[in-house]
Structures are given as C-alpha cells and as structure tokens.
C-alpha cells in the first residue's frame, strides 16, 4: 500500500517536476475566461488571428481587408491588452516571484516568432484556436493540427538539443 503510494508520487514528480497545481489552476482560469466569453458573446476568444486583424489597420491589400478581420479587429486588441495586463497583475500581486526575464537567447525569439506568425496564420489557428477552442468544438481539423504542432515542436527541440542548442 505505502509502496504503491510512494511509486505513484515518484511517477508524478517525474512527469510533473513543478507539481500539478500550477497547471490545473492556470488551465481552469483560461477555461473560465474562454467559456465566459463564449457564453456571453458567442465569440471564440482565440489568439493568432489578432496579428492579421491588427495588420488590417495598416495593410490595404484585399487579403487583409476581409470582413472576418475587419469585424473582429477591435475586440482582438482589447483581448490582447487584457492578456498582457492580466499576466502583469498576477505577477505583481499573487505571485511571490515578481517580474521575470527569460534566458532563452534573443535569436530564438526572432526566428521562432517569424515561423509562429506565418505558420499559425497558414494553419488558421494556434495553441488557443486549435488547442483550446478547436478541441472543445470537437473539430477533427483542430485535432490534426494540435497533434502536428506538438509532435513537430518535440522533434524540433530534440534536434536543437543534439546540436547542443
């Protein structure tokens, strides 16, 4: 009995070295956010369209002037501003850690960011669009996309690891 418990604890620690609580709390908060927005407005609060819809203010090419971008660009700006501010408020109030800066080299944000912007728009969704709203809508398209970007992400990190990056 005790041995089984110890074995289970070790397994949990191996799979989740930081514990499960932060992920459950974070996931529940994100779930409450997207669910409330959907129930109140009928809108899927997703992220990656934000880039194209914000570009529609500046780029007059027909692709960027599609109805779907013009109709959503305003609330997408409010949603994005909320995300930045929500993370800031959490960090300076609830979290004991305070402001934090990553040690991932800048070139990785620059190259990776470009591919993230291009890829999510080509795929019509990101971790929030395909991952949280698409999966919750039982969309097969989103399931294939999620499996693909997670597998490719795992392969990418491990290839970088082989080169000591």
């Amino acid at each position: 009995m005790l041995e089984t418990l110890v074995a289970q604890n070790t397994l949990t620690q191996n799979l989740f070295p930081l514990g499960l609580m932060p992920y459950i709390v974070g996931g529940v908060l994100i779930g409450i956010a997207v669910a409330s927005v959907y129930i109140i407005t009928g809108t899927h609060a997703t992220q990656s369209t934000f880039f194209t819809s914000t570009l529609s203010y500046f780029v007059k090419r027909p692709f960027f002037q599609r109805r779907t971008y013009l109709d959503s660009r305003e609330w997408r700006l409010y949603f994005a501003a909320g995300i930045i501010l929500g993370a800031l408020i959490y960090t300076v109030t609830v979290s004991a850690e305070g402001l934090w800066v990553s040690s991932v080299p800048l070139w990785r944000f620059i190259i990776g960011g470009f591919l993230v912007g291009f890829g999510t728009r080509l795929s019509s969704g990101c971790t929030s669009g395909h991952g949280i709203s698409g999966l919750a809508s039982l969309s097969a398209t989103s399931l294939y996309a999620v499996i693909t970007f997670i597998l490719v992400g795992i392969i990418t990190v491990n290839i970088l690891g082989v080169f000591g990056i």
Partner: protein
Amino acid sequence: MKPKNIVLFIGGLIFGAGLAAGGMSKPEIVLSFLKLEDLGLLVLMGCAAGINFIAINIVPKFIEKPILGEAYKPRTRIFGKNTIIGAIIFGIGWGVSGLCPGAALSSIGIGNLPALAGIAMMFVGAYMMGRWFS
C-alpha cells in the same frame, strides 16, 4: 467602450493571469514540455479545453442565444493541406522560441520584454503569409 470589448478585455485579464499562473508565460517551461521533461502543458490545455467544451456543447442547449451576440457557433475550420503545413511551420517556430501567440503576450506581462521581439516577428510572419496568399 462597447460591451463586447469590455467582456473580451476582462476575459483577456483572466486568460493572461491563467497563462502566468500555469507557467506558460515562461518559454523555458514550454520548452521543458517539448523536451518531455514536464508534461504540465497537456494538463493545462486539457483543463481549459474541458471547461470550454461545456460552454460550447452543453450551455447552448439551455440558453438560446448569447446576451451580446446573435447565435452560438461551434468553431469550424475546413481541413486542408495548409492546416498541416501551417501546423508544421508553427511547431518548428514553437520549438525554436518556446513562444506561441497568447503565451508571448503574457510573457511581456510578466516582465519578459525580449518576447516583444518574438511578437514583432509574429506580425512579420502573419504579414508574409497574407502577402503570399493574396
């Protein structure tokens, strides 16, 4: 301010706090998931999608239409080769940077200003995609 924008702003505040609380604002934690050292990201995504599942599939059976909208519409995306090609390109970028669009915004919020460079490049990537396909 339009009521819908207020709802999305408050939704964003909770969403951003959730990303920060769940560690997703830190590229290091996302990368440790992709290294399969910490599977917490799957738990977080599962909790969020599970709660959203109720809102999308069950709530509309009891509430006819949203207070601030015309109708409830499940999110539909037509499957095509671009779904997969895009997801592959996104996956590479995610593995290189540890950033995805929402997490990158929240990363700025927790003080990680270098993520601004990632977001700027996401705009460039989205612009190139739009140019390419118009």
